[in-house]
């Protein structure tokens, strides 16, 4: 189909339109997020008005901008529009181009005109009738009129600064603007579930920071690179994400050495959660997010959650709790994290997995075994070794030779 270079994109707000007194801050947040998503298009201007958000393209490639907007949470729908001179022939030409792009089989349509510039010689009824008639003549095989329930509505707005035409309504990502719900720490392993959980949390407006535990030499540089690359994928929904890597080797070795095998997993997880909570407190996070779903593996029974979560009173939120594996995989494929997640590198959850972990660990026992360890010292040393970096949308880490290879290809 023919490509159209649009002039402006009109964005309709999602749920946030209904959120009463928070509305202004939500709209400001969405405006900021849209600007962030489009930051490398220098000419683009974003106006976040109370009713609608307008993206003025000023020549920027509309296809690329549309692709970016599809990933911004808080947008219900948006419509790209064409601006033409205040001249009926120009309106006809633009409407013709819109129909040619959008329609490849017979549909019903109507023209709906709004006029705020009352100096324009044609009235709204006249415009509806004349433009409708013109389009019927141009596309006799494709178009029929239906003013009540048309498949396509060509909207014409006659404003002071020109005439705007839209026809297409593109579905946005829905949800709430990232950041509008506050900040949370995401425990990102590198498996299939945690990136999906992160995506769903961001969709509900959470601004995430990734907490990743790494245990060299038991986990490789590749595993770390994989977690970072996943973060780069997820950053497409928020512009950028902070990645916090936490050294976990000493804790894992100590736990392995001192704790009975059945409780290795439970005690390790309690350490991870304690560390995530401490990082959240220092960085003003309000909750911990993870990729657990109920009953998949030993660590994900309710008994296990109880024994692990007892180390904190911060909420531990699990966006994929009730999802089946197949449902999680479907989302992972949609957000393009699946292929990365299945790369076969060991992560800190897979090393030191005991052959038969307790599926119903006992809280008192877990606490008792921990009493044999220097919990505070281990925590302190791990926290002293954390590294924080900002990862941008689409940033890649696994293929260090990309530029070299690009020469070959």
């Amino acid at each position: 189909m023919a490509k159209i270079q649009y002039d402006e994109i009109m964005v309709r707000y999602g749920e946030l339109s209904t959120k009463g007194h928070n509305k202004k801050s939500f709209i400001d947040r969405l405006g900021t997020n849209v600007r962030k998503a489009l930051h490398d298009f220098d000419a683009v201007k974003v106006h976040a008005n109370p009713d609608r958000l307008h993206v003025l393209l000023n020549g920027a490639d509309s296809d690329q901008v549309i692709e970016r907007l599809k990933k911004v949470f808080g947008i219900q729908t948006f419509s790209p529009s064409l601006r033409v001179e205040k001249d009926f022939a120009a309106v006809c030409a633009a409407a013709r181009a819109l129909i040619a792009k959008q329609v490849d089989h017979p549909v019903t349509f109507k023209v709906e005109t709004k006029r705020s510039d009352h100096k324009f010689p044609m009235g709204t009824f006249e415009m509806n009738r004349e433009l409708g008639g013109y389009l019927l003549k141009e596309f006799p095989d494709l178009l029929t009129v239906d003013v009540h329930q048309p498949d396509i509505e060509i909207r014409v707005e006659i404003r002071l600064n020109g005439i705007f035409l839209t026809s297409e309504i593109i579905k946005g990502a829905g949800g709430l603007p990232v950041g509008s719900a506050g900040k949370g720490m995401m425990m990102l392993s590198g498996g299939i579930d945690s990136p999906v959980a992160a995506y769903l949390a961001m969709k509900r407006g959470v601004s995430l920071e990734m907490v990743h535990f790494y245990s060299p030499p038991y986990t490789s540089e590749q595993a770390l690179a994989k977690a970072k690359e996943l973060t780069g994928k997820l950053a497409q929904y928020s512009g950028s994400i902070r990645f916090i890597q936490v050294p976990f080797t000493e804790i894992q070795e100590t736990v392995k050495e001192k704790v009975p095998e059945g409780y290795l997993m439970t005690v390790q997880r309690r350490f991870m959660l304690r560390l995530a909570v401490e990082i959240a407190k220092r960085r003003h996070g309000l909750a911990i997010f993870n990729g657990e779903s109920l009953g998949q593996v030993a660590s994900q029974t309710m008994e296990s959650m109880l024994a692990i979560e007892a180390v904190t009173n911060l909420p531990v939120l699990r966006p994929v709790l009730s999802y089946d594996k197949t449902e999680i995989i479907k989302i992972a494929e949609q957000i393009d994290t699946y292929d990365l997640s299945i790369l076969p590198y060991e992560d800190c959850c897979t090393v030191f997995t005991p052959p038969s972990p307790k599926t119903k660990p006992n809280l008192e026992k877990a606490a008792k075994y921990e009493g044999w360890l220097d919990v505070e010292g281990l925590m302190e040393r791990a926290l002293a070794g954390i590294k924080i970096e900002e990862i941008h949308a689409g940033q890649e880490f696994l293929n260090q030779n990309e530029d070299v290879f690009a020469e070959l290809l």
Partner: protein
Amino acid sequence: MIYFDNSATTRVWPDVLATYDQVTEKIWGNPSSLHRLGEPAWNLLEQSRRQIADLIGAKPGEVFFTSGGSEGDNWVIKGTALAKRKFGKHIITSGVEHAAVRNAMAQLAGLGFEITTLPVDEEGRVKPADVKAALRADTILVSIMAVNNEIGAIQPIKEIGEILKDYPRVHFMVDAVQAIGKGLDDLVFSDRVDFATFSGHKFHAPRGTGFIYAKQGRRLEPLINGGGQERGQRSGTENVAGAAAMARALRKVKEGEAESVKREQAVRQSIADHLRQFDHVHLFSGLNDHFASHVLCFAIEGVRGETIVHAFEERDIYISTTSACSSKKQAEASTLAAMKVPATVAESAVRISLGDQNTLAEAAAFNQAFDEIYAGFKKIID
């Protein structure tokens, strides 16, 4: 030398060969190895896949590397048959497909599948209405090539795709081996096409390389089982050097595509205009938009195709009898037979197939050589 046999194979570009050599020499690890010799091999393979996907407007997960066109055709046809045999055993194809398609179909026919082979019109094209009429409740696959390798006819892929929109479960496969780099992507990748097959050596990549496009969500059974490479769909340690070389060749083909198609059209026009002056010359390829820019099939009445090929060869001009794969077997051209061209005429057919490197000067040289050859055969023609 004038090389007018680009549908048979193309010459590997020197820089593509350099990529192949460098990768073979330096990135020789097994992509499945976890260590630092395997890792770059994996990354390069995936980067090559991504580049190819970008160039054809697909997702990386929709590109699978193969050893070439024949493997791709066999895989999609038999892989569909294996995956969908529970739902039906009826397959629709055309009478002008490449032997890789025809013979894969023949093998399936021997296993109890029912093959409907559609006729073609005088331009060698399938009629979409025939596809519609042939579709049944138990049809699992429609396999129609994009561009015919013998006469260059472009099949009505879009129209067939439109019909198949009402049959969403039927796999639609397009053998696109002859269509790559010919300005036909809109056709090959129209939205209803589920599978398309490609061969690297037809676009200046080394022999033994190829890929298929397989639309996300469409299921094929693998033909080659083993270590689970290519997402479990095509086992065997990956040909990383071949994939990288092919990715480069495809990029260059795409970069030069618009220019190259224009040049090919001009060369073809010049030769066709010349040939049309002769009463005893038959042109089987048209010059309208039903034909790809690079193929021109013709016959000198009464002179065997093989004789013509050798006559040009003596003048250092390389053309072929119709399809290189079968041209040593003296089989009459199957496409011409399907077009109901009499066998006596078909056995005189030869094919010129152009590439991006061919020029109008070469067309002029060809035309001059043709005059000499035609004059030489004057006695047996009249």
